[in-house]
């Protein structure tokens, strides 16, 4: 094929212009694709296995996308489903997909691509020294694997291509790199890596490639072997050199090279030209393939269970001496915990003082200038739900009543906006794996298995 068109909407659940989407369908795209997750929202989705956006919140939008693809008879592709793209997320999204297909009398050949990684697999990679830290992370050890809640590998295009080889018309992938979701269909049609990957990177955030993201216009990438074009499909929206080239800048640490499992998208020499009022043409994209695929592994471990209190403080005397107050609060809470038979190793207590340095902490250049009121976020993480249940009833009162015994009865340090004052926030996770592993072809098939099924009304 000499030209492949990819219709891209923004991340699933963020909405898009319905008119723009319908106009996009009229351009006869070869695939409709959207990203469905991100690690930007922290480790909770992976650790808990819960959907970042509940099925009820995305169902209407998802239905529009699936109807569009079914109507045209082209594949619909999405990845990092559920947020973290763990097996639990793929399962829940597959359930939603079956429901939407049945209800709307749509029929698909569904490919589910799983991406969860077992501790046993990681142990093998550690022993063979085939897993290295990414960024500032520590080397991975077997000790980390013992506290692991869940881990996923971030797939590139290879598992998607296997699904397309199996004639899938709907691909629900677990954790994937954003561009892989958009690059796979043009790659499968035989177009070169360079234009497919770079184009994919420019449309993987959908309407963010336009001048007014709030209009929600889907974007269309028209890819050939030599170049690609990016344009919005909603009338009145615009793509400019700045917005399209900007897509490779944001949230990437290097604006010229973006690593993928199969190689590096190299945009050093790329030329962006404004072809007409709404369309940008890009040439001189490059792609440097890797000899062996390298896959990013993300893992989340449980830290404990959290309760929090948000308290307003208006007393200028208290604000002026807030550090001494917090030290006394910590010490008193420690005494309360000990009276309940709980030691300081069994919980973590943190304070964030909003109005002073809650956002930047020790790096806040204006730390000395607290406002006339401050918000105190009291953050308690206990090792177990039982410890939390015993400690949290004492959290708010200990601070609010501190130093209130002298003089008249009553009064308090904390203005609580909510009743109950203590929020129960459940399990807390942290990223415990943020590493890169080299994988053989056999290992790729092992950790990114493709399952095919026929779904929809005629299949019943």
């Amino acid at each position: 094929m000499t030209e492949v068109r990819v219709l891209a909407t923004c991340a699933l659940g963020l909405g898009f212009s319905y008119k723009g989407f319908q106009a996009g369908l009229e351009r006869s795209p070869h695939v409709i694709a959207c990203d469905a997750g991100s690690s930007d929202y922290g480790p909770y989705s992976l650790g808990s296995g819960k959907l970042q956006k509940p099925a009820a919140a995305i169902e209407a939008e998802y239905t529009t996308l699936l109807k569009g693809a079914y109507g045209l008879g082209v594949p619909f592709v999405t990845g990092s489903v559920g947020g973290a793209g763990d097996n639990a997320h793929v399962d829940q999204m597959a359930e939603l997909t079956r429901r939407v297909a049945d209800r709307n009398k749509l029929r698909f050949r569904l490919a589910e691509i799983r991406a969860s990684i077992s501790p046993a697999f990681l142990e093998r990679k550690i022993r063979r020294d085939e897993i290295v830290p990414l960024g500032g992370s520590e080397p991975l050890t077997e000790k980390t694997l013992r506290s692991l809640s869940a881990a996923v590998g971030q797939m590139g295009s290879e598992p998607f291509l296997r699904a397309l080889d199996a004639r899938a018309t709907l691909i629900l992938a677990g954790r994937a790199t954003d561009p892989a979701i958009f690059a796979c269909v043009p790659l499968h049609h035989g177009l070169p890596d360079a234009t497919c990957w770079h184009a994919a990177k420019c449309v993987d955030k959908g309407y963010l490639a336009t001048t007014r993201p709030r209009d929600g216009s889907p974007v269309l990438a028209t890819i050939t072997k030599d170049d690609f074009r990016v344009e919005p499909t909603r009338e009145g929206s615009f793509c400019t050199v700045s917005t399209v080239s900007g897509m490779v800048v944001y949230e990437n640490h290097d604006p010229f090279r973006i690593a993928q499992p199969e190689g590096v998208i190299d945009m050093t020499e790329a030329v962006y030209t404004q072809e007409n009022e709404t369309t940008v043409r890009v040439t001189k994209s490059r792609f440097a393939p890797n000899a062996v695929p390298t896959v990013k592994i993300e893992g989340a471990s449980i830290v404990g269970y959290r309760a929090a209190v948000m308290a307003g403080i208006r007393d200028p005397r208290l604000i002026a001496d807030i550090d001494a107050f917090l030290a006394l609060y910590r010490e008193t809470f420690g005494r309360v915990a000990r009276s309940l038979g709980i030691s300081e190793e069994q919980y973590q207590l943190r304070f964030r003082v909003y109005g002073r340095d809650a956002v930047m902490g020790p790096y806040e250049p204006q730390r000395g200038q607290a406002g006339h009121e401050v918000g105190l976020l009291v953050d308690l993480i206990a090792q177990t739900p039982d410890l939390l249940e015993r400690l949290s009833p004492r959290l708010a009162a200990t601070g609010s009543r501190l130093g209130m015994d002298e003089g008249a009865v009553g009064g308090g340090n904390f203005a609580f906006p909510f009743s109950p004052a203590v929020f129960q926030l459940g399990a807390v996770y942290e990223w415990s794996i943020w590493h890169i592993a080299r994988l053989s072809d056999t290992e790729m098939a092992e950790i990114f298995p493709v399952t095919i099924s026929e779904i929809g009304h005629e299949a019943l």
Partner: protein
Amino acid sequence: MKLSEIAFFIKSNNAGATFLTFDVGFKDERSFELVLASGAIDEPTIERLYPFARGNVKIYSYRPALVIKVTVPRPSTSGGPAERDFDGVQQFAPLLDIEVPCRDS
């Protein structure tokens, strides 16, 4: 002149869980080139504002989008128990007041 008076936007974001990246965008080539030539965004300035980045500051000038980009390691991996800004979106504030020496034009 302050950087916030010349730049079109000044943003910060995570670049993965272990990096923080700052994007300073300009409306026109003139202001982009002016700030670039002034050397106002250089390693010592970034290290002074973000002491945790010492020795690990990367600065890129990205002409197609008229963006000066700065990437530093996060002080701690995103989303940990002591997190203050897990997306890293409010960490740009100290950049706003960077002095850009302006030549007479």
